[in-house]
C-alpha cells in the first residue's frame, strides 16, 4: 500500500514538474572592448569628437546570476563570484544552471566587488588588483586623437544589481528553458558606456572633456583629475544628468555611467539598482 502510494506520488510529481533543462550564462564585452571603439564615421557609431579608445584591461566581477519565475521563486543562483578580463576573446562561460524547463521571467545578475571572486580568463595579478582595490570594475586603456594619446587606469567600487533582464526587440523577459535544449544567455558588457555624454535619453560618445582634464599634462587621465572638472564648465547640452541627482563633476558622471554597462543578450536591458 505504501509502495503504491509512493509510486503514485512519484508519477504525480513527474507529471506536474517539467523536465530539467540547462541554461548557460556567458559574458562578452563585444568588439568595443576586445578591439576598441573607433571614431564615428558616417553611419558607423563611435566617438563624436574624433577620439578613439582601446582597452588593454577590462576587469569585471560577475556574481549572483539568478534565475527565478514570475513569482520570484528562485530556480537557480550562482554561488560565489567570478572575475573576467573582457579584453580577452569571448564569450566566456560564467555559470551553468539546471532548472525545470519552463519560462523564467526574472533573470538578473550583479557586477560588484567580491574578496572571494575566482579567476576565470583573468591573470592572477589582475584578480589580485581587483581585490586590493575593492573594485568591481577596472578599465585600463588609452584614447587617441591625431598624434595625442591619453592613458587611463580607472577603478570603480560600485555594486550594481542588474534585475529583471529583458531581451532586445520585444524578445521578452528573462529566459525560456526548453526540454532537451541547452539555452545560452549572454551577460553582455557595454564598454562604450563609460564615455556617454548623457545620463538620460540618447547619448553620444565623447572623450574631449576627459582629455582636457589631464591637468598635469602627463598624458594620463586619472579619476582625481576628472573630479576637478565641474560639469558647469563643459558646453551646455553635453554631460546632462537627467534624473540622476548629485552628479556634479566628470568623476561623478563616469562613475554613474559604470552602472549602465551590464546588459542582456547583446542590446537587451536590465533594471540597474545600487547595492
Amino acid at each position, binding site marked *: 500500500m505504501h509502495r503504491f502510494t509512493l509510486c503514485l506520488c512519484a508519477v504525480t510529481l513527474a507529471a506536474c514538474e517539467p523536465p530539467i533543462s540547462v541554461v548557460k550564462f556567458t559574458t562578452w564585452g563585444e568588439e568595443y572592448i576586445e578591439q576598441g571603439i573607433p571614431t564615428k564615421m558616417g*553611419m*558607423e*557609431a563611435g566617438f563624436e569628437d574624433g577620439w578613439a579608445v582601446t582597452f588593454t584591461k577590462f576587469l569585471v566581477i560577475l556574481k549572483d546570476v539568478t534565475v527565478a519565475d514570475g513569482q520570484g521563486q528562485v530556480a537557480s543562483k550562482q554561488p560565489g563570484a567570478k572575475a573576467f578580463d573582457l579584453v580577452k576573446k569571448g564569450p566566456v562561460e560564467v555559470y551553468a544552471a539546471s532548472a525545470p524547463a519552463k519560462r523564467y521571467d526574472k533573470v538578473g545578475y550583479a557586477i560588484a566587488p567580491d574578496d572571494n571572486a575566482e579567476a576565470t580568463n583573468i591573470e592572477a595579478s589582475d584578480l589580485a588588483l581587483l581585490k586590493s582595490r575593492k573594485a568591481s570594475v577596472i578599465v585600463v586603456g588609452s584614447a587617441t586623437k591625431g598624434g595625442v594619446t591619453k592613458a587611463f587606469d580607472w577603478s570603480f567600487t560600485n555594486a550594481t544589481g542588474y534585475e*529583471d*533582464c*529583458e531581451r*532586445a*526587440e*520585444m524578445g521578452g523577459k528573462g529566459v525560456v528553458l526548453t526540454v532537451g535544449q541547452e539555452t545560452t544567455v549572454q551577460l553582455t558588457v*557595454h564598454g*562604450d*558606456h563609460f564615455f*556617454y555624454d*548623457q*545620463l*538620460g*535619453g*540618447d*547619448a*553620444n560618445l565623447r572623450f574631449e572633456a576627459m582629455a582636457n582634464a589631464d591637468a598635469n599634462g602627463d598624458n594620463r587621465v586619472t579619476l582625481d583629475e576628472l573630479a576637478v572638472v*565641474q*560639469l*558647469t*564648465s*563643459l558646453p*551646455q547640452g553635453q554631460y*546632462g*544628468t*537627467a*534624473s*540622476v*541627482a548629485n552628479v*556634479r563633476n566628470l568623476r561623478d558622471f563616469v562613475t554613474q*555611467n559604470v*552602472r*549602465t554597462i551590464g*546588459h542582456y543578450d547583446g*542590446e*537587451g*536591458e*536590465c*533594471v*540597474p539598482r545600487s547595492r
Partner: protein
Amino acid sequence: MNRLVLVLLFSSCGASTDQVRRTFPLEVLVRAPTAPTDSGWTLSDVRGVASFASVRFFEGQVLITRRRSPLDWLVSTAHAHPGHYEAGAALGELLEPLELNLAGGEPATWGTVNAVTGRYGSVELGWATGVRVLGTATKGSESVRFDTGVLAPTKPLSAIAFEHTMTTAEGTVRLELDLGVLLSRVDFGKTLSTPDAQGLTPLDRASPAFNGFERGVTDTTSYRFTWQSN
C-alpha cells in the same frame, strides 16, 4: 461545456488591463531653497516666473541612458526596454498654459488632467516662454542680486519620474518645483557680468553661472510629481 468556455474566457480576459477614463486635478507648489548652493551661496528673496504650456503623463518608467543606433533615424517605432526611457503610451494630458509665480506660497491649481487609469511612469513638461529667476545670493561678505534672464528650452522636459498606479480613487497630482535643486549648480561668483543700473547682475549666457542654471532647469529632479490621496 459552458462552464469550460466561461473559464477560458475569464482566464484570457484576466491578463488584460481595462483602462477607465478619469480626471484628476494637478496642483503646483514651489519649494524655496533651504540650503546653500554647491558653491556655498545662500539664496534669499527668490522669485520669478516659470511658464509652462502643457503636461503629459506616460507609462514609461524613467531609467537610464540608451545606446544610440544609426537605425534610430530610420525606425520610428519605439521599443520599450528596461533600462531605457521610452515614453510609451500617453495616459493623461493637461494643455492649459501656466504662469507659475516662483515666489512660492500655497499650492496653486494648474488645472484638470484628462486621463485614463493605468500604471504611470513618467511626465513630460512642455515649456511656454520658459523660466526666469531673480533673487539675492550671499556668500561671506559678498552679495549678488541676480537675474538669470529667461531660459526658454527648445524642447519639452521629458522623463520626469512619476511612478503611480492610477485607479479611480480620488486624489490630486502635485508638482513640486524645487528651486534649491534648480539653482544648486549656479556659482554666482562666475556670472561674467557686472550689475546693471538697478544693481541687478545678469548671468552672461556664456558664463559658468548660466551653464549651471541651464543644467538645473533641465535636471528632472528639480521637478517632483507625487500623488496626494484625498
